[in-house]
């Protein structure tokens, strides 16, 4: 399965894409560009949309739509998959100065998983914080491919993964409909919901991919 693990709808203040526009764009990718994209994860900034249900839209367009969060920490942005009421009770999702290590621990405690986003981003990525001496003993996975990265930033994430034996995901970081799917994560297993996504990430069997590379291979 190819799933875009990082996207933002208008529920995030800096996005202009509706979820309806995203599912329509998935049809463009599939029908006009011959791409395979099975689903995407809405990783809204500093929140989790407990009240939103996209199951009808997902069924109508045959697209897997999952929900997650992108939270701000003192050491950069962190994607959290498998967010639930327990985690939201323990962690203030809107706290922009939370400790990334505490978030990683709390996520695991509540059956979720935390993945630092765009770690190679200049100035605000995990790489810069680790260069300053920050350490993250409980970290296993980072976002290796980010569709919004500038030149050199994904390469820094590559180096980070190599140096620390981290596994890497891929996500577009789309804030506009037409950016969805530019980077994705390939899973060999079938994933139907957030719980299974967390399990698949914990299993460690996945690969980050560029859409353009999948197109070439189709």
């Amino acid at each position: 399965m190819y799933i875009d693990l990082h996207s933002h709808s208008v529920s995030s203040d800096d996005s202009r894409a509706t979820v309806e526009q995203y599912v329509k764009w998935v049809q463009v990718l599939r029908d006009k560009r011959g791409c395979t994209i099975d689903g995407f994860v809405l990783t809204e900034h500093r929140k989790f949309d407990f009240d939103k249900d996209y199951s009808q839209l997902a069924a109508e367009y045959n697209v897997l739509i999952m929900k997650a969060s992108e939270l701000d920490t003192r050491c950069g942005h962190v994607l959290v998959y498998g967010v639930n009421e327990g985690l939201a009770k323990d962690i203030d999702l809107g706290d922009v100065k939370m400790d990334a290590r505490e978030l990683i621990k709390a996520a695991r405690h509540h059956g979720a998983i935390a993945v630092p986003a765009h770690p190679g981003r200049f100035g605000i990525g995990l790489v810069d914080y680790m260069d300053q001496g920050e350490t993250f003993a409980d970290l296993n996975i980072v976002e290796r491919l980010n569709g919004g990265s500038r030149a050199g930033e994904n390469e820094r994430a590559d180096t980070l993964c190599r140096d620390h034996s981290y596994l890497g995901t891929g996500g577009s970081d789309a804030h506009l409909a037409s950016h969805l799917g530019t980077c994705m994560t390939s899973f060999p297993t079938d994933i139907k919901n957030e719980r299974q996504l967390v399990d698949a990430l914990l299993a460690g069997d996945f690969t980050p991919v560029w859409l353009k590379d999948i197109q070439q291979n189709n």
Partner: protein
Amino acid sequence: MPDQNGPFFEDVDLGDEIGPIELVATDDNVVNFCELWGNPMPNRFTSQEIAEKSGLFGPIVPGVMSMAIMSQALTDWAGPESLKDLDLVFRQPVPHNKPLLVSATITDTREEDGKNLIECDVLMMGEAGERYVGGTAIIALPSNRGQ
């Protein structure tokens, strides 16, 4: 019927791309814009010193000028008075004297209240992939039905 040099509604499809159009906002361009705009100079758009005091790397392109540049890219393609809505997010400061790539991608087409509308994602990027300004636009196109 007015002259139609731009596309007809029936000519465009989801996923079609406009551009990228490459241009540079030079120091002189920005000064001229500020004069027309009526923004007193020097300011953070024209002065290195004032820009640095504002925490910027240097003078930047005014947001309203970036909007004008992106609007023009769309109206050059679709024709004057075609642009009905432009909703932008300013993600990073736009630098002077560096290549700016403006592009749009058609994400939806619809007929509404007798108008033929297309919705686009519109983006201003830098050479290294910086996403300076992004958002959506709604453009009305003429139809060629009945011709």
